[in-house]
């Protein structure tokens, strides 16, 4: 028997005045590997998280988290969220604030202080324990907000832009932290950094204009071997499509939007070095056409795929 979904929505919708932020979302998320939630600005990612946590009420449809409606008291302490724009209280040491949140999750006062110290250490901010939020940088505050999601043992952790505003080294530490904990709890990660999502997540939900465009495993979405993606010095001429389509085994040629300087060549990979031969033939065709290339990637990144799937129709 399949395990009950951790998140289940049916016909979920949320409007802000006349704007439809979420539109008929039917979704089931299973516990396990981290799940990415991606999409362009205004796609509805933060609204979706806000509805799951009960910050916003749905306008239509139903939502269940861990088998309960949001705000149900059985969910207290079992769901944690890194909100995108929430601020800690000014003038109060961050360890005190984290300890209070831990106490609300059922820890005794003494255990709560220890728990706050533990999560601060996890995000490499043990030294900042006695500092109040206004004494900390944006990146440090983000890490403290991440730390509060690790208080106790939540089953579901929703992270809204967990690496935004962090320097590359710290972002890498946070990703390692998520990896180290993803066996104990299910993460749902909303991010514009699709490389992070691709690295961390097993599956991805793509939202656009409040609707689900795709919900699949990352491995199924990103074609690893049967596509060549090029970053070019300039936008390629339209004529290149015909030239590349003439190359043996090439099935489809995609040009990026004007200004993207991007080209993707899909081909049938027949194995036994066939892919390499096609690759060489494509490179020769580009050189012959005088198309300057900055970078070539075998396969297609999640970023390319998301851009492709959420591109406005012209």
């Amino acid at each position, binding site marked *: 028997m399949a395990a009950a979904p951790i998140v289940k929505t049916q016909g979920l919708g949320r409007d802000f005045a006349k704007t439809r932020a979420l539109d008929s979302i039917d979704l089931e998320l299973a516990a396990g590997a981290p799940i990415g939630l991606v999409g362009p600005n205004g796609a509805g990612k933060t609204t979706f998280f*806000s509805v799951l*946590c*009960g*910050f*916003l*009420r749905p306008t239509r449809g139903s939502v269940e988290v861990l088998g309960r409606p949001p*705000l149900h*008291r059985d*969910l*207290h*302490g079992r*769901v*944690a*969220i890194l*909100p995108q*724009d*929430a*601020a*800690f*209280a*000014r*003038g*109060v040491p961050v360890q*005190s604030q984290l300890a*209070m*949140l831990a*106490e*609300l*999750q059922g820890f005794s006062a003494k255990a709560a202080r220890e728990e706050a110290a533990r999560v601060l250490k996890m995000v490499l901010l043990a030294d900042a324990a006695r500092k109040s939020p206004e004494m900390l940088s944006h990146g440090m505050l983000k890490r403290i*907000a991440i730390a*509060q999601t690790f208080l106790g043992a939540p089953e579901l952790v929703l992270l809204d832009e967990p690496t935004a505003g962090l320097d590359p080294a710290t972002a890498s530490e946070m990703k390692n932290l998520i990896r180290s904990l993803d066996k104990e709890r299910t993460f749902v990660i909303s991010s514009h950094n699709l490389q992070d999502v691709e690295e961390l997540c097993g599956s991805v939900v793509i939202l656009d204009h409040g609707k689900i465009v795709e919900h699949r495993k990352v491995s199924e979405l990103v074609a690893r071997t049967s596509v060549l993606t090029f970053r070019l010095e300039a936008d390629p001429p339209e004529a290149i499509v015909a030239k590349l389509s003439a190359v043996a085994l090439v099935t489809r040629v995609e040009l990026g939007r004007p200004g993207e300087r991007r080209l993707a060549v899909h081909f049938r990979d027949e194995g036994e070095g066939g892919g390499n031969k096609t690759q060489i033939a494509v490179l020769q065709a580009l050189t012959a056409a005088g198309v300057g290339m900055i970078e070539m990637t075998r396969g297609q990144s999640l970023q390319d795929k998301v851009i492709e799937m959420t591109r406005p129709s012209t």
Partner: protein
Amino acid sequence: MRARRHIGVLVRHDLRYALSSPRGLLFLVFFLLVWVWVFAKLGGGFAAKLGTPEAGFIVSYLFDKDIARLLVERPPALAAYLVLATTLTPLFAMLASCDQTATDLGTRRIRFLIPRVGRAEIFFARLIGAAIIIAAAQLLAGIAATIIALVVNGDGDTSTATIIGYGAQMTAFVVLYSMPIVALMSLVSAAMASVGLALLVGVGGYAILALALTWLPFTGTLATVVSFLVPSGLKPYLLRPELGPALAASAATLAYVALYTFLGWQVFRTRDA
């Protein structure tokens, strides 16, 4: 049981940091400055003068005869404290309680709380925290007024026990009179989601109503109805020397508390966080 524990944690945390915040300090400094000045005046001989028939005549002419009677029939220092305290209470209580759920909502700090506690627990914890702060401040002011009344009385004809009894009674009236204002601010702070705006709307609204009652030609039933829109309509009854009307007015403050708390909860409950 869990809800009570949650409220306890939130209130304890609120109280621990309430007076170290800029808003808490502003209230504390303002409250202390006003009362230290008032008590210095009362202790410096002004209270003794208030008890004279001449002062009673002037007060009766400027305010009303019930206040003049209060000054004569009660220890004047305590009577003056009660008159001033009931006048200043709306301002002090608004200052002390303008930030209940306002900062939670305005800074979205509430998003750290909602996954851990119910909305009702947050709302009532903020209300109780604000009520405790203003009640504690009013209690201290009442104790100070009683001590000054005892000092001014000296070997006078009012017994120490009587003065302490009056002091306790008047302090209780002032504390009770503060509670509807705290409850009113739970509504305003939830609606405004900004401390500054909540204070502005609370104080501004109260001032506009007071001016309307003073300057607009309300008479008869209309004047009575308008005066009872806010708890200041109860003030004349609290200032009567007879215990009956004052007790009835004190009980009526609870009706205001219930009404404003209910309205505040409805606003907070249905708001996006």
